Structure formats: C-alpha cells, structure tokens
C-alpha cells in the first residue's frame, strides 16, 4: 500500500514542486492540469511510434515547456487574467489531445486500446532496497520519485537560503517594489514557469507510460487542480506540501484498493470520488482564509 501511494504521488509531487515555486513568484498557474495532460499524451505517442520511453519523457518535458512559455506570454508579458488563461489552456489541452489521438488511431478506439510495451522501469537502490519490508516499499521506485524528492529539497533550500529565492519571494509579494529594486520580475517568472513546464510534462508522462501503459481522454482527471489545492494546504512551503501530498496519495491508494478488492456493497464510484471529496473537505478544514504570497494571481503591468 505504501509503495502504491508513493507511486501515485510522484507525478503530483513533481508537478507540484514546479507550481509551488511559480506561485511563490506570484503566478497562479492553473494550466498544470493541461501541461500534465499534454505531457502524458506526447510521451505516449512518442513511445508508441518510436519505442523508447525515455525519448517520450524528453518530448513530454519539451511540450510542457512550450505550454508553460506560452502561458507566460499571456500572463507575464501581456498581464492577462491568470485564472482564465490557465483554464483556457486546460480546455484546449483536453480538446487537442483527444482530437489528435483519435485522428491517429481512428475515432472509435478498438476494444484493446493502443498500448505501449516498454515502460519506465523501477530502479532498485543498492543495499537499501534489500532491507526487509521497507526495502521494496520505499527504495525500489521509479527514478522520478527520487527526483521529485530531490527537487522538493532543492526548492526548500532555494526559497529560504538563496538570493534567487529571496528575489522569487519578493516578486511574489510585491512585484512593483521588486522591479524598483532592480529585480527583473519577468525573467524570474518565465524561468520558474519554464521549470514548471518541464516538471509537469514529465509528471504527465509518468501517468501514461509508467503507471499505465496507454493514453485515455482527460487522463489527468483533475489531478493538476488537486496539486494546487495541496499547495494551499501546505501553505506554500515545500515540506508541508510533501506531507499534504503524501496524505492525499494514501487516500488515492486506498480508493484503488477498495475498487480492486471487489467489495460489492460499496459502490466503486464512491471510491473514485474519494480523492476529490477529501480535497474538498481538507480545503474546508484547513484552507480557510489562508493567504499565499500577497501578489498571487494579480496581473502585474510594467509601467516603464
């Protein structure tokens, strides 16, 4: 169960780290959902046609990057409303991926949907993974899980201990003052978005070529939005986000377990609902009147 939770939480953590730093920089990027979905789609297509899952990951990263930069163009350079832009991108992502998928494979997908043979395999950490019980649960995972944890550590260090982190925080709190002090808010925001794009694209690829071996319409099923909720619950701090994410992953794994266990009296739809309901309830309990960086979500226009 723990192994399952960890596996499930990895994409959330990866995408979440990116979104967290972006939000600390003052941008509310709802298009994480779309970036993940496009990443999932792109990696699947590439792996299907070229047979190499790592190439798929690379393409996923690049496509996430492209979306992120486009989003940056709208929200940073043109200062358009961030919420609506993010939602727009997500809708386009769903439409475009479904469309191209069907255009490629035919619009009535056969009973056995196209699937991929070679997936990203787990990596067993030497020595550690041979420990009884704990070993297989904790230490033999997808390399990206370790990567996610590393990034979380890095982001915590970055934000609190480095000058870059200070600039990021200042940009998120008050971009006007930051600009006045000579910080290039645009450059920082674009850089953060680029990072997020890459991470989210990769996170999405994990869905289609690691957790599953196919692509389904709207695979991400709102996980991008959940990531944002988790960030709120974690008060925009990397380690707390990790905790929130882990708890959520636990619920997610639980829900899958319930479905798989064949308990007939408990409708499986309610199990599927569980993650969303939990997020809702968690927000209700913990997310009241919580404020992020003061400038989060506010369009900022450079006047000079």
């Amino acid at each position, binding site marked *: 169960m723990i192994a399952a939770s960890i596996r499930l939480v990895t994409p959330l953590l990866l995408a979440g780290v990116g979104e967290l730093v972006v939000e600390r920089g003052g941008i509310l990027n709802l298009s994480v959902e779309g970036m993940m979905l496009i990443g999932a789609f792109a990696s699947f297509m590439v792996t299907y046609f070229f047979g190499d899952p790592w190439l798929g990951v690379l393409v996923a990263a690049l496509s996430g990057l492209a979306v992120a930069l486009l989003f940056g163009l709208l929200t940073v350079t043109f200062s358009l*409303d961030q919420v*609506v832009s993010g939602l727009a991108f997500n809708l386009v992502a769903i439409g475009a991926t479904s469309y191209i998928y069907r255009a490629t494979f035919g*619009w009535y997908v056969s009973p056995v949907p196209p699937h991929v043979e070679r997936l990203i395999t787990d990596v067993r950490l030497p020595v550690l993974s041979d420990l009884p019980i704990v070993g297989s649960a904790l230490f033999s995972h997808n390399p990206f899980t370790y990567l996610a944890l590393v990034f979380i550590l890095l982001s915590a260090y970055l934000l609190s201990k480095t000058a870059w982190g200070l600039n990021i925080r200042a940009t998120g709190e008050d971009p006007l003052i930051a600009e006045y002090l000579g910080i290039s808010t645009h450059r920082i925001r674009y850089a953060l978005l680029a990072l997020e794009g890459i991470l989210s694209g990769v996170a999405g690829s994990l869905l289609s070529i690691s957790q599953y071996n196919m692509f389904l319409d709207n695979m991400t099923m709102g996980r991008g939005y959940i990531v944002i909720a988790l960030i709120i619950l974690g008060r925009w701090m990397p380690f707390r986000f990790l905790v929130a994410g882990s708890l959520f992953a636990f619920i997610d794994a639980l829900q899958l377990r319930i479905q798989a266990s064949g308990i007939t009296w408990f409708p499986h739809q309610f199990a599927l609902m569980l993650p969303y309901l939990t997020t809702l309830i968690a927000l209700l309990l913990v997310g009241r009147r919580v404020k992020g960086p003061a400038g989060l979500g506010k369009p900022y226009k450079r006047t000079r």
Partner: protein
Amino acid sequence: MSQILNRVEKTINRIKKTDERRLQYQLFLIRMATSLFAVGLTLLVGAVFIVLAGSNPFTAYYWMYQGSLGGVSIMVETLVRSTPILLVSQGLAVAFTAKLWNIGAEGQLYMGGMLASIAAIMLQGLPGYSAIPVILLLAGLAGAFWALIPALLKAYYEINEVFTTLMLNYVALYIVSYLLLGPFRDPVSQFPETQTISKELWLPIMLQGTRLHAGVLLTVFIATPVVYFILKKTVFGMRLAILGANPEAARYSGINIVKEIVLGLVFSGFLAGVAGGVEVLGIQHKMRMEISPGYGYTGIAVALLGYLNPFGILLASLFMGGVMNGSTTMHRMARIPVGMAYLIQSLAILFIMVGYLIQEKLAARLFERLEEHRPA
C-alpha cells in the same frame, strides 16, 4: 434673445448626446471586432489541425458550413444544439459578472438532469403542462443546490470557488454514474441510463419534422431577455457588477457580500440544472452519462466570447452550436474526427483571451484621446 440662447443650448445638448452615443457605438465596434478576430483565429488554428488529420481545410469548413447553416431544418438543428450551451452560459454570465468563477456548471447540469429524470419517472401519468414546469423547476433546484455548497464555502470561508466547483464536478459525475448503474438503471436495456420517460412528459415539439422543442423557445425568448434584464436593469445586477469590479468597494457601499455571492453562484447553478432538465425532457428523453459533451465548460467559453452580454452570448452559442452540428457532417463527408468540435470550442476561449487584451488597449486609446476634453 433668450430664444436664441435656448436654441443654442438645445443644439449643444444634442451634440453632446450624439458624442456620447458615438462613444458607445465605437466601443461596440471594438468588441465586435475583437470577438470576430478571436473566432477567425480559432478557425485558422482549427484549419491547422484539420491539415494534421490529413484533410483539406476548405472542404472541411465547407461541410461544416453546410452542416450548420445549409438549409432551414439544419439551421433549426443548430439552434437546438445551441440551447443547452446558451442556457448554461446565461447563468454563467451572471456569476462571471460578479467574478464568481463557476467552473462547476457541468456537474450542476448533471445533477439537474438526474433529478429531472427521477422526477419524470415518479410523476408518470400526470399531464404534461402541469408536470413539466415542476420537473424543470426541480432540475434547476438540483443545480442550484450543487452550487450552494461552493457558494457558502466562498461566502463564509473565502475558499476559492474555482476548486470547489471543479471538485464537485467530478463528484457529481460519479454520483450520477452510480445512480445510473444502480437504482435507476433501465430494467429493460440494462444500459447505464434511466428508462425512457413517458411521452406526455416530453417537451412538445414546436416545429414538425425537427427537434425544436419548447425548451429552445424558452431559452431563447424567455431566459435570454430575462438575464439581460437582470444584469442591466435591476439593482441586483448592478450589485453583482460592483462586487465583480471591486469587492471592497461593494462592502463599503453597503452591499451584503455574502448574500450576493450566494445568490450569484446559486443562480448560475439553477440555470445549469435547468439546462440538464431541458436536455432530458426535450432531447434525450432519459438520463444518460453522455448527456453533456462538456456543455458546462463550453458555456464558460461562450460567456466570455459574448463579453458577458446575454445577446452577445446568444450569438456566440449559435456559433458553437453550429460548430457542433456541422462537425457531424464534417465527420461524415470529410472524415474529420468528431473531437474537432470540442477542439474548436476550446481554441475559441483561448483566443478570446487575446481578444480581451486587444480590446482593452483599443478602448484605452479611445478614451485617452477624449480625456480632459470636457468638464461636466
């Protein structure tokens, strides 16, 4: 002498009025232009995707045109297809005016449709003219209720409504799925859908040979003007606009923010629920999982495309309905995947964003030239 002065004053006033009207007219032109620009860009990018699918965009769009506007009965069908989108977006226009981002229209629609089908089954045997309004009302209430939870969360706890409405979308879908596969499954067909509701409870067809049902007329001729009236002519609409423009200013002018938030979101939920009910009673005649190909999301795009103006929304939803209608023909004749419709709809919302930006800049320049020219 005084007569001359009077005359002069009257002319000056008339000039002032025409000046003001000219301003309004120019603003209107700017808005139309940017909406058209967005639509144009959408079709352009759509053409790219068509090419990607290996077809000729000109042929494809030709068939789309034929399939949406190529004949009276086809146009009627376009109208029919636009109806649920129109109804949902009218409701969203109200919520969005107050900057209440109701992303949960899809879920609210499903709840409305579900309750409508349940009510229709239970009210079997009753005459249509008394039962149908009740069913639609119940559908609306279901949608309203589904929006009430996020509304209260936002009003009292300041929890962002984007997430709450979105999460409830998924929850609603699963609830309906459970009900359709369980207690309300059609005993005859065993499909995940309800049994067909009895004929008296179907929305009457207004035009023989088409699918034009009473719900269409209700939406176009009643709902649209009513929403326009609410937004532009009532204090409620004004309060929503103030709330959307500046919540602090709203509070400071004595507006009860909690009440407005709840009313705004619940109203949009109500209309979304009714949209679900209309689809059940007028088109599907039963409740199914496929009742909505994303009307709740398309409604967002349409509301923005129409600049939150009910009549602009009418035009925008006709556009979307046309796209949907035409895409089946496009699919048949030019082998374009049906998903094209959805793609076009989602591209439209993206480009309307850019359109908003341009519109802002143009309007600003328009006013800059006039600023400081005339005192009161």
